């Protein structure tokens, strides 16, 4: 750990250049995932350096520009929760951010980190899928449903930095997380749903945060019961320390039914 070089870029342009030129370099933002792994020595391949993105002004803030909400990759969840733009236009994102860890983690965790870490249990990731968010990087825009390519694998190239996440306006998304307790819990099932267009996005039920395509097709046809039945075929849950596949399957169906019910009563 102590041999790892700490690099503090002056600007985003500086960071992009350093990241491209430095093999074995890992981007660091709030550290809520990476600092644990660095200390435990479980980062593979072992990094030679960390590139500190936390203080870069270009990666902070929430902006509403031309019917798109853009959130800096290194903006904290606390900043996201407190943003009036988010409260007004992306309430499901604020709801998800409030369920992450507790104050200590919300003050440091970021969307860029949640995306890059690509845990199937990342609590904001189903919300991003339900909003059809776009991941902006130093070189391109990646639609969120192309982003997760495998267990903790992403479409990012090895020298590509996430700079922001963009959300379209005008979509109603409902969110629900099921964990062991209200705070500091890693999800057993985490879900975000949009009725129009039909989006059903779920975490902790497969190797990636996924869109439940069969259930979405049923919902598009107006078949709510069919969607609840089909979602069991869309997911690939496992037994692990936090839950069982059978529990996750049952809870996924119940949570989807509950969220769709709530939409119907609006």
């Amino acid at each position, binding site marked *: *750990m*102590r041999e*790892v*070089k*700490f690099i*503090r870029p002056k600007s985003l342009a500086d960071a992009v250049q350093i990241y491209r030129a430095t093999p074995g370099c890992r981007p*660091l933002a*709030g*550290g*809520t995932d990476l*600092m*644990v792994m*660095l*200390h435990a020595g479980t980062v593979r391949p072992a990094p030679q350096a*960390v590139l*500190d993105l*936390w*203080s870069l002004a270009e990666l902070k803030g929430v902006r509403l520009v031309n019917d798109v909400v853009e959130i800096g990759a290194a903006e904290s969840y*606390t900043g996201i929760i407190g943003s009036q733009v988010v409260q007004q236009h992306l309430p499901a994102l604020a709801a998800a951010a409030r369920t992450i*860890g*507790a*104050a*200590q*983690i919300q*003050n*440091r965790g970021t969307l860029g980190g949640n995306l890059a870490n690509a845990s199937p249990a990342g609590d904001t990731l189903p919300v991003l899928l339900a909003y059809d968010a776009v991941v902006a990087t130093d070189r391109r825009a990646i639609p969120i449903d192309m982003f997760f390519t495998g267990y903790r694998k992403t479409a990012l190239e090895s020298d590509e930095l996430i700079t922001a996440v963009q959300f379209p306006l005008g979509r109603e998304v409902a969110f629900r997380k099921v964990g062991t307790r*209200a*705070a*500091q819990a890693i999800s057993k099932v985490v879900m975000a749903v949009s009725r129009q267009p039909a989006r059903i996005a779920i975490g902790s039920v497969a190797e990636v945060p996924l869109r439940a395509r069969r259930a979405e097709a049923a919902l598009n046809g107006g078949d709510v019961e069919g969607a609840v039945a089909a979602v069991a075929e869309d997911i690939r849950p496992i037994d692990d320390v936090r839950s069982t596949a059978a529990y996750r399957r049952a809870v996924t169906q119940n949570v989807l039914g509950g969220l769709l019910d709530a939409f119907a009563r609006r």
Partner: protein
Amino acid sequence: MRFTLNGTAVSLDVAGARRLLDVLREDLQLTGTKEGCGEGECGACSVLIDGQVVDSCLVAVGQMEGRDVVTVEGLALQHGKLSQLQQAFIEHGAAQCGICTPGMLLAAHALLQQSKRLDADDVREGLAGNLCRCTGYTKIIDAVLACAK
């Protein structure tokens, strides 16, 4: 690197990727900040950075350049007089084994800085990132509420 620690400017020559927690305890001998889980689950290592409560086990010390850091050693008022919150912890018996106490104090301090209008649920939510292994939460919540309005 330079930052402010408990109101005093400090200048350190340490590897930037080290955990703030370790630099506080090992290099600066500020052992009031405790290590519990080392994974951001328990809050024992909580400190304030620019007034926000964070787990110092998750912070690279290199990220502290120009920041304002407060540990439990910096909570007391001048001349060693305890803060109202610290005094309330004593009066309510809010410490048992004591390992969570520094982190509880800093998280509660940050919460009270945001708002003094708190009920018991607000305090529970505000301290949800701090675990008490003695499970003595009731007295802790009472002590924080005594400092709210």
